[in-house]
């Protein structure tokens, strides 16, 4: 890495690392003038993304998603419950996002992170409003039994763009989800049919014949962009987020409809042209993420 100390004052004598810590904004602006970021990415490119399905063997569906260094582990566990009276044909999804102290030096054991409940609420709103999952698919016996899906997402490393990685891991976990085979036993309760004695269970009619996957309509994908003066940085890292405090998250689904556009304040204003550029970057990112997810699913099926 070449040390480009272009400024003429006392900072020209300094090492790059010291300059980065003492004058972070100038360090970044020096890079933005050349349309590049300190980690070598061009402004519109997101970090390398990987998805690994089935990371948690005991869960019904799970995924580990990494965007750069930000790592999220999502797992779905299914439980039988009685459906609500107003919607006897529908199941339920409960989403929880955790930021344990392992993820960042700013999160301490006694003090929960401020971002955690906010991201939980945003994920819940988006997953339920985007129509990805038809809750009627989670129904077992109308009015008596339905599935309650607990989705837990753990942040293992918080390095910026937490919401993007969390949404990606949630979508991947639901793609991997397999609903187990159950049957109604004599007491009228639902029991799980385990693999070993599936032969003996045939006299008790299974409620669903085989393990099935959920049919997912449109998958929502998101991109967070940091806005700084006239520059738009896609997928900011934690350092970039703390310096340029203004960011905008766009969530699009597979048919490129806008599921959510969230700009929660911040010191900078967003012009209409900046929003349009962010939407264009998100459209590109949705295609990338679709490909990565499809590759991960086909890898799983080969095994």
């Amino acid at each position: 890495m070449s040390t480009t100390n272009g400024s003429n004052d006392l900072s020209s004598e300094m090492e790059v690392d010291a300059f980065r810590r003492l004058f972070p904004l100038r360090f970044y602006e020096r890079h933005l003038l050349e349309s590049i970021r300190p980690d070598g990415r061009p402004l519109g490119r997101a970090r390398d993304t990987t998805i690994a399905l089935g990371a948690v063997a005991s869960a019904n569906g799970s995924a580990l998603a990494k965007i750069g260094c930000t790592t999220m582990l999502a797992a779905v566990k299914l439980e039988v419950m009685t459906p609500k009276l107003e919607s006897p044909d529908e199941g339920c999804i409960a989403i929880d996002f955790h930021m344990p102290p392992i993820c960042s030096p700013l999160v301490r054991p006694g003090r929960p992170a401020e971002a955690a409940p906010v991201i939980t609420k945003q994920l819940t709103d988006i997953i339920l409003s985007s129509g990805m999952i038809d809750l009627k698919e989670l129904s077992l016996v109308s009015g008596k039994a339905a599935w309650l899906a607990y989705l837990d997402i753990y942040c293992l490393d918080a390095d910026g763009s937490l919401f993007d990685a969390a949404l990606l891991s949630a979508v991947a976990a639901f793609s991997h989800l397999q609903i187990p085979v159950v049957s109604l036993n004599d007491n009228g309760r639902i029991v799980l049919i385990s693999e070993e004695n599936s032969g003996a269970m045939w006299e008790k009619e299974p409620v669903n014949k085989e393990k099935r996957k959920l049919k997912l309509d449109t998958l929502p994908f998101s991109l967070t962009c940091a806005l700084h003066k006239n520059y738009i940085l896609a997928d900011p890292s934690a350092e970039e987020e703390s310096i340029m405090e203004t960011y905008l998250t766009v969530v699009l689904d597979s048919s490129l409809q806008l599921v959510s556009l969230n700009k929660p304040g911040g010191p900078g204003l967003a012009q209409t042209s900046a929003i349009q550029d962010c939407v264009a970057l998100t459209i590109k990112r949705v295609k990338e993420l679709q490909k990565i997810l499809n590759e991960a699913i086909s890898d799983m099926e080969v095994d």
Partner: protein
Amino acid sequence: MDEKREDGRSATQLRPLSCTRSVLNRAHGSASFSQGETKILAAVYGPRAGTKKNENPEKACIEVIWKPKSGQIGKAEKEYEMILKRTLQNICLLNVHPNTTTSIIIQVVNDDGSLLPCAINAACSALVDAGFPLKYLAVAISCCLSKHEYCIMDPNKLEEEKMKALVYLVFRNSILSVLDEGSKQEGESIENGIITSVTHGVMTVNDYFQCLEQGRAAIKPLSNFLRKKLQSKVQSDVSIAG
């Protein structure tokens, strides 16, 4: 779908607004803001010495506490607090009082739709009442999209539940300038930026930009209302001791 809404308003008409300043006499600043039946009470305490942990001591720190009308504080309240805090960080001059904390408490008195925009307007009025240094006012509006692709402004709770998508927008207040039209060019581009945008529900990208344009147009009457109400009143009451 009929053009007329249930309460007889047109698509871009706002509900009757009302704003009362200095309703609480112990708080450094307070305001009660209502849009139709939605009513919010905001109180400002500060600046007080010291910042919270993990906050930058070279700037003033803003803390928001949201109290719902009933029920426990849950994730929705935390989200509102975060959005409000970041919106107010945009409009406040944070360098004037470094190493201080200002607390803004929002109490929901009645919720009849457009809760977040009403809260932002109330918080802004309370900050002006407290004399906190601000760059400009934040003016918030909500608009929702019906299934038939037209948008209506300032929905009440029934309308919000029927609509397919909802957008909350916060702009800076429109500029009332004594300069002539020629020099308005610069002002136009600054006015165009949005401070905050929160959406719920699925819509197309073009619908969103259409809502943005309509929201920008609807800001003018709201800005004028706030400007009239927040003009400094005669200081006949005793100054509140910090």
